[in-house]
């Protein structure tokens, strides 16, 4: 009885979480402009329209480039700072991590506004570069936090064991520390890519005419409300889910740690 209750409850939660997404996917295959009763029939026309929309492609490409660059740079910054912080005395490390995380947790509207002013001041407002820099500022602390916690789990004796067997510091960093933490490194890159790719508020403030894809889609909604959005949304949501699942898998299994 208890079991059945649990199954029903969980099914309800899962349904609740996925219904908006499913609605979008179903509508993206709808023949008419609006879903109506009776069902107007199935069609791939919105996908076709999306494949012909070159401005949308450009915005997607722009988001892709920014996302990949932000993912790589933020992760490298985060990996380095996470490593440095993890080697400080326990309390100092955690406090400094909190300090560098602060800019990332103020509301994005505020941050976007401030950053737009700053970008205008140094003359990069309304460029793709400014979106990139803003995202690095906001997302690299997340990577630092992810890496920091992984580094804190490492047994330092392992590095000493390698050192004693004659390994140089460079070898220790790449072979021993890197070998144990690369999953976290890649997961962090993926998570940050997905976040940057989907980020709308800051991009809206700073991107200008060089619209990234979320900004473009938002504009599209305001002007035309074309069901093409459902098609784009379905594709993007599918890719995001796929990438996030990969990241979560890597994080859940960080180098197969087990107490030994």
């Amino acid at each position, binding site marked *: 009885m208890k079991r059945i209750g649990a199954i029903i409850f969980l099914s309800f939660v899962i349904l609740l979480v996925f219904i908006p997404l499913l609605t979008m996917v179903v509508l993206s295959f709808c023949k008419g402009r609006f879903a109506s009763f009776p069902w107007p029939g199935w069609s791939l026309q919105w996908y076709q329209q999306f494949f012909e929309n070159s401005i949308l492609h450009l915005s997607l490409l722009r988001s892709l480039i920014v996302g990949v660059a932000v993912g790589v740079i933020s992760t490298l910054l985060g990996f380095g700072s996470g490593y440095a912080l993890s080697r400080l005395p326990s309390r100092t490390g955690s406090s400094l991590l909190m300090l560098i995380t602060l800019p990332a947790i103020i509301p994005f509207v505020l941050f976007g506004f401030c950053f737009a002013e700053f970008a205008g001041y140094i003359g990069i407002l309304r460029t793709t570069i400014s979106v990139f820099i803003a995202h690095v500022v906001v997302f690299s602390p997340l990577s630092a936090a992810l890496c920091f916690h992984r580094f804190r789990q490492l*047994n330092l*004796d*392992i590095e*000493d*064991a*390698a*050192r*004693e*067997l*004659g*390994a*140089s510091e460079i*070898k220790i960093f790449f072979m*021993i520390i890197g*070998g*144990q933490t690369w999953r976290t490194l890649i997961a962090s890159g993926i998570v940050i890519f997905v976040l940057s790719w989907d980020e709308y508020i800051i991009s809206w403030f700073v991107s200008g005419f060089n619209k990234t894809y979320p900004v473009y889609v938002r504009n599209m909604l305001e002007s035309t409300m074309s069901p093409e959005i459902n098609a784009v949304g379905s594709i993007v949501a599918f890719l995001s889910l796929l990438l996030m699942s990969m990241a979560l898998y890597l994080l859940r299994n960080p*180098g*197969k*740690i*087990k107490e*030994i």
Partner: protein
Amino acid sequence: MELIEFRNVDFYWGKVKILENISFQVNESEVFALLGPSGCGKSTMLRLISGLSRPSSGEVLINGKDVSFYKGRDRCVATVWQSKALFPHLSVRANIEFGLRIKRIKNSDINKRVKKIASTLGLEDKLDRSTFQLSGGEQQRVALARALVIHPKILLLDEPFTGLDQTLKLQLQADLRDLQEDYGCTYILVSHLLEDVFSLATRIAVIQNKKILQVGDPNSLYHSPRSTFVARFVGKKNLIPAIIRNVARQGREVIVSSIIGEGNWKAINRLNLELNDNDRAVYVIGADSIELNPTGDCILEATFRAQEIDGQRKIFYFRLERGYEVRVEICTTDSIRLYQYVRGERVNLYWKSEDAFLLKE
């Protein structure tokens, strides 16, 4: 000749003193044990030998040269870590090979050496597993193989027996003995348990509170402890507070009276302590020197508390006044039937005065 030498070594961790004026030597092919309670600085001494830490003052020498002289591929020290410190992301084979690869040894030689050590330690069929698929005992053997495969001059073993059950412990001790014959390296063994090192070590340094209290072979530590700590920790002796009554001017016999109970006993001043009448001292008598039937010239009345049987030995616990306890070990098969006491019963303990000796408080 001596292989390792500590010369007046002090070590500070920040402002905390970890080791104080440590000096000792270890000879080639010895099994040298560092014995002491947790946190007394034993593991730090291993780090100093392997050059992972530098002494705050004093010198640590290997073959007469400062340890910092041995760098990278010249290193001749390997450690079996208490945490095992296996590389968790590498296979068993890659773990064992690691030191050889760093030293850029030829592939064919690497394979030969890995094969040999793996067969010695019974790891042949585990080489391609990951380390976390192994049991604790197997992980310990991988750690040992990884250290020994580089043919170190000195093998450091940090609490190698903790976490192993009795069978595995005996097996590892036997393996270590055999391996020393094969590889001829010097062992430095760290432990907080006497039983773990007593049968293996040629010499033991007892460490307490940052300092070395006594260095000697197991027998001399057991029979002639020079401090109450060593007497209790190594010899499991009974220590009874006493007052010197009469110091015999000739010979080494001393009459003492115990502070607890009423006894006037003789003891031998084996350590040639500077003793005067009415000084306080500690009267030391081994658990295996006390008898329960009237023999010997010393007698003490005590209250029976408990007993336990340990193989051939029967161990009795008696209580004295003021919470002092006396341990008695009787080593005959008869004792299982003999000496049946009820809790609280008053029993006379006997021993010969020549088995007892005195220590300063």
